[in-house]
């Protein structure tokens, strides 16, 4: 039926009964207990003013070995970057260096409290300033905040900064323009910032339709949000004309920095005329995805916007010491404390490991690897934008759908059997049956060749035996799920018997 590669997740798939942590252990089981009381404790309910808990929460009662067995078992069912390649377009799933993990766990970083006096955390503040300065240099935009906890959070923060800038000059505006290729967080952030979303269509080359943009721009537009390189993997050649048109109506140009990996050291959004951008540390700067987070989404803004940034921000004083300060016209806070410091430490370590030259090599190899794969695959699959791509390219499964009734989803599931995570699918919305492929620079050539070979094998399987592909995957720990059932009758938590 199918061949399993040695590194297929769950190469010995666990098919036996699987339990929840609540079902392990016994009521008497213990792992970590409270220390013996060295001070008296009486009349707890009086101390609590009549609030004492009447029924204990039904948390697991397990031993340490129960925990390790259970979570090791769960880990064995998981695919990670350490397991194999994730060619996920716009996610930049590069390798997560181990020295970064060591760094964030150092007691001098992990064990400090945000309200400690500044003189006791000079190293932490210096590190934050160091990363902020590096991001300013890389982006070409001098005003930086490391506060946002995620890319989406960064987008929203930047829109708030833009709103404050317009309000400060008595020029409040109502709309934000996005292209139809925009990531869903863009319009969602626009709404959260009290603006109306206006969508313009891309041209046949997958770039911004400059005439459509100019027609949509007026003095009610606060900003234009663009990902560049864009979400079909192309650098928009008209970028300067675009940002100039945006500025001409007094609006700001925002760069969604998800695809920064393609242009590190080769081009800077600030130089393109962007006024603000967010950077995904968990994409471009190698911090781990953690199964969904935490990431970080620092934003870099122009001199003009810097005074509106959220605070507090780490700053370096003239005497070389470090502290926290507030921008002059700050919008306020967008979260508690200073930022996802543990993630910031990892990104700082990455930047210091690579240096400027190293970052440029990252972009060069990322772009070369993507073009290499595109060349290998463009015979078997439709590639709508055939010209040289940047760090990612988009393919369409429409030929396979048309000729054999097999969809991109089916081919993605079949990839799992061969030990690869699928590419990004069904995004951008512009391309039918889209597959967006981004290998990143950290994949060995052997992995790229293996991926290409597997994709061609699957294309072949689609033609010879479409039903095989449509029922994939076969060798993963679980097979295709009843997602409709999950949404119709949501079961979102375990309940003890009797609840």
């Amino acid at each position, binding site marked *: 039926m199918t061949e399993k590669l040695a590194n297929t997740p769950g190469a010995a798939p666990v098919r036996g009964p699987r339990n929840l942590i609540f079902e392990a252990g016994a009521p008497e089981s213990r792992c970590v207990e409270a220390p013996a009381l060295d001070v008296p404790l009486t009349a707890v309910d009086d101390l609590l003013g009549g609030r004492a808990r009447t029924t204990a929460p039904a948390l697991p009662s397990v031993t340490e070995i129960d925990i390790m067995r259970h979570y090791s078992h769960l880990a064995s069912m998981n695919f990670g970057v350490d397991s194999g390649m994730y060619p996920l377009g716009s996610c930049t799933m590069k390798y997560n260096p181990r020295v970064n993990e060591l760094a964030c766990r150092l007691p001098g970083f992990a064990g400090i409290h945000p309200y400690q006096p500044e003189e006791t955390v000079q190293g932490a503040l210096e590190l934050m300033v160091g990363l902020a300065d590096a991001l300013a240099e890389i982006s070409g935009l001098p005003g930086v905040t490391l506060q946002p906890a995620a890319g989406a959070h960064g987008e929203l923060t930047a829109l708030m900064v833009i709103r404050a800038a317009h309000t400060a000059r008595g020029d409040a505006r109502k709309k934000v323009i996005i292209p139809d290729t925009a990531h869903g967080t863009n319009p969602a952030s626009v709404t959260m910032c009290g603006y109306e979303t206006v969508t313009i269509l891309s041209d046949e080359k997958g770039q911004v339709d400059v005439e459509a943009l100019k027609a949509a721009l007026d003095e009610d537009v606060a900003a234009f949000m663009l990902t560049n390189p864009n979400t079909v993997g192309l650098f928009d050649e008209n970028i300067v004309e675009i940002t100039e048109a945006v500025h001409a109506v007094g609006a700001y140009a925002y760069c969604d920095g998800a695809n920064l990996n393609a242009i590190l050291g080769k081009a800077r959004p600030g130089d393109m005329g962007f006024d603000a951008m967010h950077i995904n540390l968990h994409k471009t700067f190698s911090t781990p995805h953690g199964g969904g987070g935490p990431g970080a989404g620092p934003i870099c803004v122009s001199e003009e916007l810097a005074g509106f940034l959220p605070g507090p921000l780490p700053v370096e004083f003239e005497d070389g010491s470090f502290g926290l300060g507030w921008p002059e016209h700050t919008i306020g806070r967008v979260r508690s404390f200073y930022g996802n410091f543990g993630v910031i430490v990892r990104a700082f370590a990455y930047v210091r490991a690579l240096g400027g030259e190293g970052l440029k090599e990252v972009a060069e190899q990322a772009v070369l690897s993507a073009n290499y794969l595109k060349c290998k695959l463009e015979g078997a699959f439709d590639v709508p934008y055939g010209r040289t791509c940047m760090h990612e390219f988009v393919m369409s499964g429409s030929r396979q759908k048309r000729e054999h009734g097999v969809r991109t989803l089916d081919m993605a599931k079949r990839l799992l059997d061969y030990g690869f995570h699928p590419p990004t699918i*069904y995004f951008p919305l512009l391309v039918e049956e889209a597959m967006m492929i981004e290998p990143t620079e950290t994949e060995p050539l052997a992995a790229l060749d293996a991926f290409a070979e597997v994709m061609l094998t699957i294309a072949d399987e689609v033609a010879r035996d479409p039903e095989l592909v449509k029922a994939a995957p076969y060798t993963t720990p679980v097979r295709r799920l009843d*997602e*409709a059932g999950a*949404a*119709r009758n949501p079961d979102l938590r375990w309940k003890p018997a009797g609840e």
Partner: protein
Amino acid sequence: MAHPNDRVYSKEHEWVVADGDIATIGISSFAQDQLGEVVYVDLPSEGDSLSAGDSFGEIESVKSVSELFAPVSGEVVEVNSALSDSPETVNSDPHGDGWMIKLRMEDAGELSALLSAEDYDAFITEG
């Protein structure tokens, strides 16, 4: 596969069966096929007033949401509450048990602006 000709259709893929001044409304077989497995239908309440073209609710599949648009104007007199337990009925029987709302029509003349089954089939083929 032709759509039944005992009813009329809108370009937003709703159908209407009129019985006196009561219009029963649902979505077409083509629409449910495009949506995939329906997981949730969000419908208005009895007594709500709708104008032709108004959104009267939403229909969700696992990975998409679509709005439902009133093909005619009127007051909602009945809502198919069975769909909250069994939204999949929209897939299995879109023209029968998968009905969504009944309206008391303000102006039955609005029906003439809708498409016959033949015209609707042509519309979805060319689109």
